């Protein structure tokens, strides 16, 4: 939560988001999550717990999946950020997005952007994960709707199709 006492400190942030460079002045206590959602209006990144426990706010920072509710915007200085909005190229879904559609992995959808980014990063580091490996890799991403099986199906399909 923001503090009301004391003068806020400002910072000139330079960051690349979905391939585009941005330069903005932010307060030093601003979360990367709020910077993305409120400054850049990239609202595909979701907040659910705000405490690093659910994975809804997952984005890629320099290629690594992070919960951006726990990252300050200033920590992203000079970083490359990828959000869910940065995945589809020219209207074509990436393999993971397509697989989530094909495998009926989506219900309410609120966990899905974080799932897709986390799954994408898994497949980067491990192109052919087993079902068990998928489950352990995504264990920090909570879904309340699906019971997870169709999400694992989707990641498996994306792995098969992408190789």
């Amino acid at each position, binding site marked *: 939560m*923001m503090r009301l006492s004391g003068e806020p400190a400002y910072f000139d942030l330079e960051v690349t988001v979905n391939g585009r460079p941005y330069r903005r002045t932010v307060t030093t206590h601003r979360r990367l999550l709020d910077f993305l959602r409120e400054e850049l209006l990239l609202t595909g990144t979701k907040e*659910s717990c705000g405490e690093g426990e659910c994975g809804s706010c997952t984005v890629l920072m320099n290629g690594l999946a992070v919960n951006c509710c726990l990252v300050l915007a200033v920590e992203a200085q000079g970083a490359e950020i990828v959000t869910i909005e940065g995945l589809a190229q020219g209207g074509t879904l990436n393999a993971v997005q397509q697989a989530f*559609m094909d495998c*009926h992995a*989506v*219900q309410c*959808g609120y966990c899905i952007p974080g799932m*897709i980014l986390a799954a994408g990063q898994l497949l980067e580091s491990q192109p052919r994960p087993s079902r068990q490996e998928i489950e352990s890799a995504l264990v920090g991403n909570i879904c*309340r709707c699906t019971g997870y099986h169709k999400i694992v199906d989707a990641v498996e399909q994306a792995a098969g199709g992408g190789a």
Partner: protein
Amino acid sequence: MSYLGRSIKRVDGLGKVTGRTPYTPDLVLPGMVHAYPVFSNIPFGRITAIDLAAIKEAPGFIAIILAADIPGENQVGVIVHDQPLLADEVVRYVGDTIGLVVAETAAIAHALAELVQVKYEEYEPVLSMEAGRAGRGRLLHESNVACSHRSVRGDVEAGFSSSDLVVEGTFTTPHQEHFYLEPQSCLAIPEPEGGITIHGSLQCPYYVQRAVGGALGMSLARVRVVAAPLGGAFGGKEDVPSELCARAAVAAMLVGRPVKMVYDRRDDVQMTSKRHPFEMHYKVGVNRDGRLLAADVLLESNAGAYATLSSVVSYRAAIQALGPYRVENVRAISRAYYTNLPPSGAFRGFGAPQVCFGHERIMDHIAAELGIDPVELRLMNLIKPGDITSSGQRLDNCAGAEKTLTKARSTSGWLKRLPAGAGRYREGWGVATCLYGNGLGAAGWRMDGAGARLQLLRDGSLEVAYGLTDMGQGAITVVAQMSAEAVGVELSQVRVLPTDTANVPDSGPSVASRNVVLTGNAIRDAAEDLRKEMTSAAGQLLKCPPEQVEIEAGRVRDLQSGREIPLAELAEQMFVTNRSMGALGWWHAPPLDFDADRGQGEAYFAYSFAAQIARVKVDTVTGLVEVLKVWAAHDLGKAINVAGVEGQVEGAVSQAMGWALTEDLRMTDGRVDTVNFSTYLLPTFTDMAAVETIIIEEPEPLGPWGARGVGEPAIIPVAAAIANAVSDALGVPVDDLPITPEKVLALLDKADNGGLGTGTTAIGSHG
């Protein structure tokens, strides 16, 4: 039948995988400001002063709304009028809302809300159901009982005295938090002509419309409510959004700007409704063979601070207290008590998962006493077509009760299961069955209607509006499938509009698995009118009698000559010849003949049936329960979207696994201790059981294409099946949820020390 009974990809999937679906917290409007609630931090007391000094001069502060600012009625109780929209005198739980701070940013609104100083005269709070039941000291409301229901038939005492065995047991189930991933949120937009538009994460737009109209003293025609895409609801966004939206509406009218409000997770958990905890006492008499002869059931639940939907839950609990079994002598009483805890309210299943735990545990106690196979005992007692339910309703379309059970048994390999063994890891098997009354039931059938509007456009595409909502379960896709099917357009040519009170007459709440049956029938009703017009125009075009025209999947054909034209051509022709191209459809539940005093008669217009079998592995050293697999057999009448059904079942299994095993909601002095995901443990990827969904299709005559609801039935038997399986594994009755490792170890200890009593049993006098 081209679009039904298949796995159809979600029509709203694209936005969800690209991050473009606009959920309520994502909405931004010019001039928009933000609100955050000021809520009570004590469980019970009288407000003596509200000190605003700390916030009024703060940068970014715009306004604070208190009870006195409400232009209309300060009342938001949906059934019982016991809940002020903003507490002005008494606060009844930690989280009871006193005011709203409006500020330039969400962060400022939240910070300022915490700075408002409220002084109280504190009262002795009622912090448990036992205290609520005792009803001593200061009461929250006129009575300590929020509601009570009964379902009584036959002569229970006579039933017991003719029984060979009477088995008793007490079963308890805990609170459950919905933990939808998208927190409660809404956006209230004052309209230039004096009305208001609400966008929100809400299941029941017409509830919200009424609440907002009431709070503002505004005619309903000026209140428009649009359901934004929902990031999960599960009942948690049935009545609660009425509170948020009505408060935000008052604020928006006062400041003249759009007001957005999104709850923080911790506050959401503290402030909003939960599944009712139940304490259930079952006393059941059987003959030697296991035939149920009499049942005396007391179902007590914790209503929390306000009645909200307790009466719906309590009614359903009493009616379904004995599940799908025939019992001629029954006394089922259900009561909910007020306590100074967050209100209990709607949660997927409405009391049915709780009583299912009760009736399925007692069935296993009976099976153990008589040495009968648990499935056999159930088969012997299940209702069959033409039988009367324990709540006095003759059912002719209930073959699914038996079919789901026998199919679950054969698919799971139940008959070949091995004994639990005595090693460190013990496997167990459990079975549970249920029935679920579709719709609002006898108390609400006069309002149990829903609408759909179809509009054919001149290029042959179809716009569909409906009055219920998609909370993530896939209603939009099912509505699109049913519309395409009923009208004869291609599925890709159907667009389902967001649910908007301006589009369709009041269709009631999106609850009780109403969508498929009510909306489906409304679509068919509308399609009948529309198709009359279409076939008549087609007859003119094709020069054949209208009866000879077939319209299917975008093709219009003269069945005799085989001549065919595209639907687009027909639609254009209809437009240029002034044909009516739209239709409003409506369907309402049939009248129900029900004796409310005795709780007997036609309680619901149709029922869904399910049987599930669970296989678990228990680690006797750590106490951890692993659910290896759940076989879930469901009679859906007709599965409209097969993948959608599987998704509903798998999701329900995971929610119920949490309720059964790990979701352990703790409170101290009315304050929830487990307010986040690290203390309130939801099932994760690695916890999830394998699930096999078994679809049985026994057509429901009142259902569209024979369909019945499935969203709720899927969750009802899971926890009971798991508890039965754990009992089987340990050889010890498990009668209290959640089955945490601590409880498993304590049960094992108790068993080792020989201090174990199963439910009290007594052999009756009859020989």
